[in-house]
């Protein structure tokens, strides 16, 4: 009997002691292994390719509007996320109606950078926004008869080597559809127009479009077909890092 009482007391006291045992916290700090230092390569802005494009929108208009003739080519050179765009075009516009005729011939040039949001060295698609500076040189002539209380007068007015310049905000796409062939479009917001002309206010500005006196802004649209000519085949170290992202 005594033995069982002692056993019970020892059992409970051992349980109580057990409950008071404190587990020591491990305060040893273990540092996670540092990733090996990757030396950041400087960005290489060496052109990797050039795309030569034709504006199909301008080209197609030649078929349905016999009074207007347009040609435009675009060259873009890619510097990783950036593209340098160079655009050159010519236009020949004539309008005629009751007692008047208008002729306009000229050329234009645009240059500016694009930022490609879809850059990858694996493919060369582009979704871009960009800026352009544009300048145009043209000759135009307007002839018509004016009739009033003073009689009928033949008015002949012209501009020789007139100039215009403007800026453009551009957005669009360039999609690789087959080998080096790309299609895409560009929507242009043309603004900050500045026109230098004589007594004849030009009806048309090559590259800008209709010159509305009370409206300095204009929207434009280009639909391009490009062919890409690559400069280098091996991806750079930067490209390899870009692919890992």
């Amino acid at each position, binding site marked *: 009997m005594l033995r069982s009482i002692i056993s019970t007391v020892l059992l409970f006291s051992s349980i109580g002691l057990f409950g008071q045992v404190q587990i020591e916290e491990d305060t040893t700090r273990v540092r996670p292994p540092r990733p090996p230092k990757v030396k950041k390569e400087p960005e290489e802005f060496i052109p990797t390719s050039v795309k030569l494009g034709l504006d*199909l*929108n301008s080209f197609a208009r030649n078929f349905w509007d016999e009074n207007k003739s347009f040609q435009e080519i675009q060259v873009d050179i890619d510097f990783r996320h950036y593209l340098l765009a160079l655009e050159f075009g010519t236009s020949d516009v004539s*309008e005629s*109606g*009751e*007692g*008047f005729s*208008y002729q306009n011939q000229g050329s234009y040039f645009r240059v500016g950078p694009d930022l490609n949001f*879809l850059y990858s060295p694996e*493919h060369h*698609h582009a*979704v871009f926004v960009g800026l352009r500076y544009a300048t145009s040189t043209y000759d135009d002539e*307007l002839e*018509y008869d*004016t009739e*009033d*209380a*003073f*009689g*009928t*007068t033949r*008015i002949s*007015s012209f501009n020789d080597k007139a100039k215009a310049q403007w800026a453009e905000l551009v957005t669009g*796409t360039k*999609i*690789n*559809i087959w080998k080096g062939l790309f*299609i*895409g*479009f560009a*929507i242009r917001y043309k603004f900050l127009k500045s026109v230098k002309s004589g*007594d*004849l*206010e*030009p*009806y048309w500005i090559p590259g800008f*479009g*209709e010159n*509305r*006196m009370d409206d300095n802004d204009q*929207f434009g*649209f280009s*639909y391009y077909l490009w062919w890409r000519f690559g400069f280098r085949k091996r991806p750079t170290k930067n490209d390899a890092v870009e692919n890992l992202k």
Partner: protein
Amino acid sequence: MRNRVVGNLAIVAVIVGVMTCAPDELCFTENGSEVRIDFKRIIYPDTDSAFTENDTLIFLQIKALDTDSVFVQMDTLSTVVLPINTGSDETTFLFDTERGAYALELSYQRKQRLIPADCGPEQIFDELAATTFSFDSLAVIQPRLIDPPITNVEIYH
């Protein structure tokens, strides 16, 4: 995922390519070829101030050089609207009134433009100036001719 994005973009490129925009062609213009002349009388209530009020004249006729047209005949008016010679850079008006005969030569700069498409050409007359006149005094208020005309010249008596 990337192929899907590229595919969608290609479709958008084709759709946008099919869409073409036809520009709106508006014939509206506010440029005019008539000059509006108001006749005013200067009132001096005291030595330090002055104001003007409409001066009504009896016109026997108003003509211009280089035309046989008579623009106003036997009328009592304080404002006249006269057509300028659109084929020249200047027009000389001859005013025959009960107070006497006056002449006014106006010069202006002409600019031509073609309003979009079917509207045809128009002239813009600006920088109106009175080069010669036999009235007491006058002032060019609005150097551009607009339609409907607003006061271009005020002639003071």
